[in-house]
C-alpha cells in the first residue's frame, strides 16, 4: 500500500517536470512570436523549420533518453554524427549509391554501439569514460577518413540530393508573401523519419519487455537483477540502440547540411543531453519518456531560432542558453530528488 502512495507521488513530480517543460516551450514560442512577428516568426513554417533543422537531433535525443533511463549517458553521439556525415560524403564522392551508404552507416552505428555497450554492460566501466573515449575515437576517425570539408552536390549523388530537397507540402497554414504569392508550408523527408522514430521508441518504451526492463534497471539495478532481468544484456542493448538511432539521426543531419567535416556536429551531444534532461528524463535513471524529450528538442530549437531572428546576438548565445537551461533543470531535478528522500 505504501508503495502505491509513493509511486503516485513520484508520478506527480514527474508529470510536473513534463508540464514545466511544455509550459516553457509555449512561453518561449509565444514570446518569440510576439517579439519577431514582423520577421515571420508566427507563421507555421517557422515551427516546421524548427522540426526540419532538428530532425536529426530528435532521433539522437530519443536514443539518449533510452540510455539515460538506465542511469547511463552517451556523449559520443556528436562525433558519431560527424563520422556518419563524413562517411556519407566521402563514400558518395567515391561513387557509392545512396542506399548502400546509408545501410553502411547504420551498420557502423550498430558496431559502434555494440563495442560501447559491451564495455559498459559486461566490463562494468563507467558509461562516461567509455563514451568519452568513443567521442574522441569518432572525431579522430572522421579526420582519418578525410581532413577536408567534403560537400555533397547534385552531381555527386542525385538520389541523395533528391531526398534532401524533396518538399512535402502541408495543405493548410500557408501565407501570402510580400509579392502576394501563396507560400505553402512544407516539411522534409527527415521530419517524417524523426516522427516515426519518436513514435516507435515511445511504443517500445511503453509496451515491450525491453522497454520496461530499461525503466526497471534505472530504478534499481539490484532489484532488476533480483527480478531475473539480464541487466548486462539490456544495458548493452540500450547503447546499441542509442548508437543506431544516432546513426539514423546522422543521416538526417547530413541530409540537412549536405557536407561532412571534422568540425561537424560539435557539441551536439550537449544539445541531445539537455533536450532529454529538459524533457524530464532523470539523470539518475528510471524516469522519463520521449515525449518530454521531443519538447526538450523543440525548446532548444526555439531558442536558436529566436537568437537567429534577432540577428544581433553573438553566435555563442544558443550554446550558453542551452547550458544555462540544462543547469536550471538539473538543479530542479536535484531539489525534487532531495524532497523525495526527505519524505521517505
Amino acid at each position: 500500500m505504501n508503495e502505491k502512495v509513493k509511486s503516485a507521488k513520484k508520478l506527480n513530480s514527474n508529470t510536473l517536470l513534463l508540464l514545466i517543460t511544455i509550459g516553457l516551450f509555449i512561453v518561449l514560442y509565444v514570446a518569440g512570436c510576439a517579439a519577431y512577428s514582423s520577421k515571420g516568426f508566427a507563421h507555421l513554417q517557422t515551427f516546421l523549420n524548427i522540426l526540419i533543422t532538428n530532425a536529426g537531433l530528435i532521433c539522437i535525443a530519443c536514443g539518449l533518453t533510452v540510455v539515460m533511463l538506465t542511469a547511463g549517458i552517451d556523449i559520443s553521439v556528436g562525433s558519431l554524427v560527424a563520422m556518419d556525415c563524413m562517411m556519407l560524403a566521402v563514400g558518395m564522392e567515391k561513387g557509392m549509391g545512396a542506399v548502400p551508404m546509408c545501410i553502411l552507416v547504420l551498420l557502423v552505428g550498430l558496431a559502434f554501439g555494440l563495442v560501447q555497450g559491451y564495455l559498459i554492460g559486461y566490463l562494468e566501466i563507467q558509461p562516461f569514460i567509455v563514451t568519452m573515449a568513443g567521442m574522441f575515437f569518432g572525431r579522430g576517425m572522421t579526420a582519418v577518413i578525410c581532413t577536408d570539408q567534403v560537400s555533397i552536390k547534385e552531381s555527386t549523388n542525385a538520389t541523395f540530393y533528391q531526398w534532401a530537397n524533396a518538399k512535402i507540402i502541408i495543405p493548410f497554414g500557408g501565407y501570402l508573401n510580400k509579392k502576394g504569392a501563396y507560400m505553402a508550408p512544407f516539411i522534409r523527408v527527415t521530419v517524417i523519419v524523426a516522427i516515426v522514430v519518436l513514435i516507435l521508441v515511445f511504443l517500445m518504451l511503453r509496451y515491450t519487455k525491453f522497454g520496461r526492463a530499461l525503466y526497471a534497471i534505472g530504478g534499481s539495478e539490484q532489484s532488476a537483477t533480483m527480478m531475473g532481468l539480464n541487466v548486462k544484456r539490456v544495458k548493452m542493448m540500450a547503447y546499441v540502440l542509442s548508437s543506431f538511432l544516432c546513426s539514423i539521426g546522422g543521416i538526417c543531419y547530413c541530409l540537412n547540411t549536405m557536407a561532412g567535416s571534422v568540425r561537424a556536429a560539435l557539441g551536439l551531444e550537449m544539445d541531445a543531453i539537455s533536450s532529454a534532461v529538459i524533457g524530464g528524463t532523470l539523470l539518475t535513471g528510471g524516469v522519463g519518456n520521449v515525449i518530454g524529450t521531443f519538447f526538450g528538442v523543440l525548446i532548444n530549437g526555439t531558442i536558436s531560432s529566436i537568437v537567429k531572428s534577432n540577428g544581433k546576438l553573438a553566435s555563442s548565445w544558443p550554446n550558453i542558453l542551452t547550458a544555462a537551461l540544462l543547469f536550471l533543470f538539473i538543479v530542479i531535478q536535484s531539489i525534487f530528488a532531495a524532497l523525495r528522500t526527505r519524505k521517505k
Partner: protein
Amino acid sequence: MNKNSGNASFFAKLKAWPLLLPVVSLILVMAVNIIHDAATGINPLSFFIITLNETTNSGSILYGRIIDILNRGSEVAILALGMTLVVSSSAGTDISVGSVMSLAASFCCMLLAGYGVSSTNELAVPLVVGVLGAFLMGALCGVFNGTLVAYLQIQPMVATLILYSAARAIGLLLCNDLIVYVRNPSFAYFGSFTGPIPTPIIIAAVCIAIVALMLSKTSLGMYIQSVGINSKASRIAGLNSKRIIFMTYVICGLFAGVAGLVNSSRITSADSNNVGLYYEMDAILAVALGGNSLGGGKFNLAGSIIGAYTIQAITTTLYALGVSTDQAPVFKAIIVILIVAIQSAPLRAYFRKRSAAKALAGREAAKA
C-alpha cells in the same frame, strides 16, 4: 600482496609496485621512438640527446626531444594534478578542464588587451592583473563545478558537462567573437624561456611541488582519499565530506586556469575554439595511466605526473609518425579504453580466478 610466501619473488614485488603501469608505458613509448629512429636511419639514441643551442632572440636554450616533451607536457601535468584529486574524492572526472583553460585564457587576454581589441602590443592593465584574472576565472569555474557536485550531489561528469560546453562559448563572448592577440614579451614569458629552461617546465614543477607539499605537510591527502573510499563513513568520522569534495574541484579549476595561461602564452593569443582542445581527455588519460582507479579512493600523484608526460611522449611520437592533430585522439581513445578495461572489476576478477587456479594446480602438482 603476497605476505604468506616469505621470500616474495622479484616479479611479485614488481607487480605490487604502484608505478608499474606508467613506467612500463613510458618505456614502451621510448622503445617505439628508438625503433622508429633506427628504422629511419637516425641515431637510435637521438631521443635522449639534449643540447644547448644558440638562438637569436632567447639566448642559449636547451634543446632535445625530452625537453620538448617536458615542455609541451606541462599543461597536461598541471591538469593531471587537479584531476587526480577530483577523481580520488568524487569518483568522477572533471571534463570541463579543457574548456575552462580556454575561458581562463580568453579572460586573461581580454583583461590584458581591453574588451573588443583584437590585437595589441601594449598591455591595458598590469600583467599581474591578467595572470590573477586567469587564476580567478579558473577557480570560479571550479567553485561552480564543486557546488554542483558536492552540495547539489549531481554526478560529476554531468555537472562538469555544463561548463564543458558553455565555457568556450562564454570565452568567445568575452573576446567579442575574436581571436585576441597580446603580442607583448612580458605575456609571452610564461610560454617561452627562463634562462636556458622553458618556463612551462618551471611552472609545472612549482605546481607539482605545491601540491606535493600540501599533501605531505597537511592531512588533506588522507582526507581526500578517505572521502573517496567512503564519503558517508568519513562524514561520521567527523570530516566535512562535502567541503573536501568542493575543495578538490576548486583546486582542479585553479590549475586549469594556470594551464590556460601557459597555453595561451605559448601562442600569445586567446583562441577560444582551440585553446585546451582535447586536454580533458589527456588529463583523464594521465590519471588512468598513472595507475589510479577512476572509481575514486586511493591515489598516486607521482603516477599521474609520469602518466601526463607519458601522454605527451605518446602525442609527440604520434606526430613524429605522421599522425595529424585531428587523428591523434583515435589512438588515445583506444589506449584509455584498454587501460580502463584492464582495471575493470569483471576482468580483474577473471584474472584473479585464473591465477588462483594456477596456484592451486601448482600446489597440487608439488604435492603429487
